[in-house]
Every structure is written in C-alpha cells, then in structure tokens.
C-alpha cells in the first residue's frame, strides 16, 4: 500500500561511512601489502590529493613500514591498504615486500637482534 520508496540492497546506495575516504571500497591492489613492507615516496602529490594521501607522502619520504603508517594515520588497516594500493598504482609510492624469509633465515641478523635485546 505504501507508495514511499523502499530501498533494498544496492538500491540503498553504497555504504560508505566507515570507508568514506576510499569511496566505500574495501579492496584494492594494496590488499596483499605485508604489515612490515617498506613504503617510500617516489612521486609528487597531485593537486587533488587528500590530507591522508599527503600525510602518507610526507611520512614516507624516509622509508616507513606499513604498520608504522597505520599507527601514524590512526585509520583501520584495510583503509590504509586501499589508499596505498591506489597511490602505488599512480606512481606516488613504492612498496617493497620484506624478502620472503630473508631476514629471519639470516643467522647474522638474528645474533645481532639477540645482542641488541640484551643491551636494552
């Protein structure tokens, strides 16, 4: 009987509130970024970049881990990954995965860590 519009599923529009920064998406090319991957700024911020992108570009002038960026931006991990994926696709940053098992299988590094922990 009601002639008011009823919204179902997609007709209700995208659910964007928690993810407004990334236009409601939860997936991007950045999904697979390891939390300890290294992010570096390699491009200049485009004119239309938002405050979060600019924040990332500033923070990553020196190499910084994904986890450190997440903590610094205080945004959910998934949101930061989408932002990073976009920025990498646009050539603004590079993201280097930790060499698979490289460091943890390096005896010299592990011994250095043990000595470093003892010296804390």
């Amino acid at each position, binding site marked *: 009987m009601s002639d008011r519009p009823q919204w179902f599923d997609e007709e209700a529009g995208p659910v964007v509130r928690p993810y407004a920064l990334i236009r409601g998406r939860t997936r991007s090319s950045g999904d697979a970024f390891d*939390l*300890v991957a290294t992010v570096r700024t390699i491009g200049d911020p485009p004119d239309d970049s938002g405050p979060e992108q600019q924040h990332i570009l500033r923070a990553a002038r020196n190499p910084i881990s994904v986890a450190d960026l997440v903590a610094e931006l205080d945004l959910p*991990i998934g949101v930061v990954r989408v932002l990073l994926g976009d920025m990498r696709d646009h050539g603004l940053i590079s993201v280097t995965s930790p060499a698979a098992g490289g460091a*943890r299988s390096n005896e010299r590094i*592990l011994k*250095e860590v*043990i000595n470093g*922990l003892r010296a804390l």
Partner: protein
Amino acid sequence: MDSVLSEDPVALKILIAGGFGVGKTTLVGSISEIKPLRTEEVLSDRGVGIDDLDGVESKTTTTVAMDFGRITIREGLVVYLFGTPGQERFWFMWDELSYGALGAVVIADTRRLTDCFPSIDYFEQRGTPFVVAVNCFDDADAHSIEDVRIALDLDDDVPVMLCDVRRRSSAKEVMIALVEHSLRTLASAN
C-alpha cells in the same frame, strides 16, 4: 643473501599470542613503545557471552585494536611485535600476521591453561618457532615448568619459561629466548 637486505631496512616480525586477557598487551608495553593498530572490526555486542571473563575479573574492556610494538635494534634493523587478536572471531588475521614471522611468544595463564591450546596448535602446524611464557599472576598457584610442559604436551625443544609480563627485564628474557630458539631451529634445519 646480504645483498637482498642491504637497501631496505630489515624488519622482523614477532607475534604475541595467548588467550583473552592473558597479558599480551602488557608484555608488548613492557618492552617497547606500543601503539594500537585499528582493525576493521568494531567491538559490538557480539562480544557479550563470547569473551569469557572467568578468572580475569579486573579486565573490563577487550582489545579490539591490535597491539603493535617496535624495538629498534639499530638504524635499519627493527623488530615489530604484533599481538594476535585474542578472540576467535579475529582468527582470519593470523595467517597474514604469521607469514614470514621470526617466531611467536605464547603467553599461558595456569588458571586457564586451555586458553593457549589453539595458539600452540596453530604455530605447531605452521612450523613457526615459538616459546611458552607462563605469566605468573599474583593469585595463581605456582606450577613447575615441567608440569606446564606436560599439560601442554610440548615437544622437548620448545622453551617454556616463567615470566612476569609487567617487568621489562622479564619481557626481555622472553624475547631473547624466542630469538635464540629461532636461531637454533634455523641451524638444525640447515
């Protein structure tokens, strides 16, 4: 091998696991600067009845944010600590967290020893080196390390140690034991 590592900072991952309210946050905080990492999940009333608070009376809130700590060994060599989310509904994050990890610390509470079974199963199955740190809560009965080892059915080579996660020196001993164990595991594999 060194050439792979020369350009990028070396980042090592250590996971801190164990049951809900066992002291993961405290351990990370004792040894490093700690910052929370926000995960996608928001705490909702789904936690009611799921988060079992028996024996952890003083814990009134749950940690939805993931604990994240950092120990800088030197410039270009950093150890990251990640507290694995304690509740089972966050288990989807474990695979990602444990990929490439140097090892794990499983914190046990002798009042609720079964709480750490899932963590131990997980790391045993994945072949991730781990140590068991028995957190000595004030009102818990003292148990010998051997009792705990038997109760947890651990392999002989898995280090078990008593600790007080509130103390930095104790947290340090646990970390050192883990890295030494990882080193031994590595040496025996080669």
